[in-house]
């Protein structure tokens, strides 16, 4: 037992420790401003809000581990929210199908991303931007340019806002997805291949792994998770909205990178992403509690992210 504990501690990366250190630092700064920052209710509330970002960041992390990036998050989130609410308005069958259908739409868009990246070999940054534009176009046609009036289904609302034994359901959802992601990344051949491709796709291909299929699946997974995040958000607000995903692109990338995952791929732990997600959520809520205007929040937010990355997210020099 002790040796296993020992290896666990040795395996924790410095970046993850730094991220958790920053969380404690933020909580400390917040508690100087108001003691309610360290109350259990506030912390639980923060974790609940963090769950939405956590679900989206999980998909983003898998893609970043490949050494790619998914910039289609904003409108895939919106597609998830809008499609699920649209289906939810179809009566009983709609209520049952809302969540699966929303996720399916996200997976479909993710597959397009994956096809472009894995088989057409187009840089992921470009394909996903284009797919984002297409998804936006589809939703504009679907909604007529206005936010849709359809309400989310009871199941969506329960997942996003309900509690079980005092624990928010959203947090439970994130824990389940997080556990699945940890198992997927560390205990399956898929996960090994993801890390491998991030280091050298050439080597993984030569080892007999169908690397292109893995890349495509990873993007499909990311699309599905983004859409699921959108479904939760639609449940939280009880309807979908234009641009509901815009606020999730930068935070999801920042959370993954702040958690110590290399943006070049191949290196990073899910624990770090959890730390990054909590860190970003705390930062956002402290800035809003302090009643700083949107303008100041954007500036502070950008500065803090760059400062933290400079602190521990730097690449090694080339030579």
């Amino acid at each position, binding site marked *: 037992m002790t040796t296993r504990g020992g290896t666990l501690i040795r395996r924790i990366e410095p970046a993850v420790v730094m991220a958790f250190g920053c969380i404690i630092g933020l909580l400390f700064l917040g508690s100087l401003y108001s003691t309610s920052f360290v109350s259990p209710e506030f912390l639980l509330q923060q974790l609940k809000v963090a769950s939405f970002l956590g679900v989206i960041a999980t998909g983003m992390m898998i893609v970043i581990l490949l050494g790619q990036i998914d910039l289609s998050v904003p409108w895939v989130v919106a597609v998830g929210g809008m499609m699920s609410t649209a289906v939810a308005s179809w009566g009983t069958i709609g209520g049952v199908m809302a969540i699966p259908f929303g996720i399916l739409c996200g997976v479909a868009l993710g597959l397009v991303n994956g096809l472009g990246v894995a088989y057409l070999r187009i840089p992921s940054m470009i394909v996903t931007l*284009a797919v984002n534009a297409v998804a936006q176009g589809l939703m504009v046609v679907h909604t007529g340019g206005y936010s849709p009036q359809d309400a989310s289904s009871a199941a969506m609302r329960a997942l996003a806002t309900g509690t079980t034994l005092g624990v928010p359901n959203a947090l439970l959802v994130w824990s389940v997805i997080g556990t699945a992601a940890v198992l997927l990344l560390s205990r399956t051949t898929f996960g090994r291949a993801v890390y491998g491709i991030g280091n050298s*796709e050439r080597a993984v*291909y030569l080892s007999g792994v169908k*690397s292109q299929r893995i890349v495509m699946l990873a993007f499909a997974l990311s699309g599905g998770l983004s859409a699921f995040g959108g479904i939760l958000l639609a449940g939280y607000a009880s309807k979908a909205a234009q641009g509901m995903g815009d606020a999730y692109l930068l935070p999801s990338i920042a959370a993954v990178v702040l958690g110590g995952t290399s943006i070049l791929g191949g290196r990073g732990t899910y624990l770090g992403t959890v730390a990054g997600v909590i860190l970003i959520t705390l930062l956002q809520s402290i800035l809003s509690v302090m009643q700083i205007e949107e303008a100041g929040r954007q500036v502070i937010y950008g500065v803090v*992210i760059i400062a933290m990355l400079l602190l521990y997210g730097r690449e090694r020099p080339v030579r």
Partner: protein
Amino acid sequence: MRDWGYRIREQRGTLLAFLVFVVMFAIYVVNHPAGFTANVVTTAANKGVLLALVAMAQTVVVLTSGIDLSVGMVFVLTNCLASALVVGSPAATALGVAAVLFTGLLCGVLNGLIVIYGRLQPIVATIATGAIFYGLALVLRPVPGGDVNSDLADALTSQLPGGVPASLVVLLVVVLALWLPFRRSEIGRGVYAVGSSELAAYMSGVPVGRAKFAAYCLSGLLAAMGGLFLTFLTYSGEASAANGNTYTLYSIAAVVLGGVSLFGGSGSAIGAIFGALAFRTIGDLLFVFDLDPLWQPLFQGIILLAAVCLGSFRLFRIRNRLELFG
């Protein structure tokens, strides 16, 4: 003869973008109810030049195999700044223009410092600096508004005698005074070298850091020119995140259409200009064909997706599957 063949092949991307633009524009003008008149051309040119400047900004960074996702936000920030500073007497206006361009340059300097000396990945760093620039724009213009020296604005957005759009002349001046000297300078060659292979460039004694830094600075400056020109067109400033994101996205689309390699090291800002003009014309085509405006975002998205898929034609040329994973 052989020399000519080489030169044409070197500029293949630019020539292709030029051809696409000419064909698109011909279709547009032929179907336009007013036909080929100076006004139609001027309106198209003004919108095209706006995107062309931002696309040039994106190009110089992409050539180093980096990416600048903050160009749209520099564009928005300088637009807001110009709507406050570029007013009053000719001297005050000139000072305002200089201040706006200098601000753009500073934004580029910041990006360059963070990416090169901070050793952060350009994609993350420029997303974060983009948030900062957008925040500053919001400070300047919490609500849309402002003003601009209308004499200067009208002069640069109308027609010269003979019906030539003044904006095209502005663009030509930018190319002749900024891009070509840069391209031919030691630093400019360094930018291409770094984009082709940073390691080889370093080994050959190319000032890698300085070349990349110059690219980011020039990018900020060009984006600021775009922001300035937007102010001349709209007579106001607006801190719109949607606008900034759209221009970032379109600048990448224009760069791709213009034959600039996203892996760096090949292509030219002139190609990106034609890419931008072609992309704008594609958007305008919808209007002359009387399509429902609701379908426009989808149409542009699909064009964009199709354009980036064109890049995969190189897959037909590979001889070994392993080249896929380079």
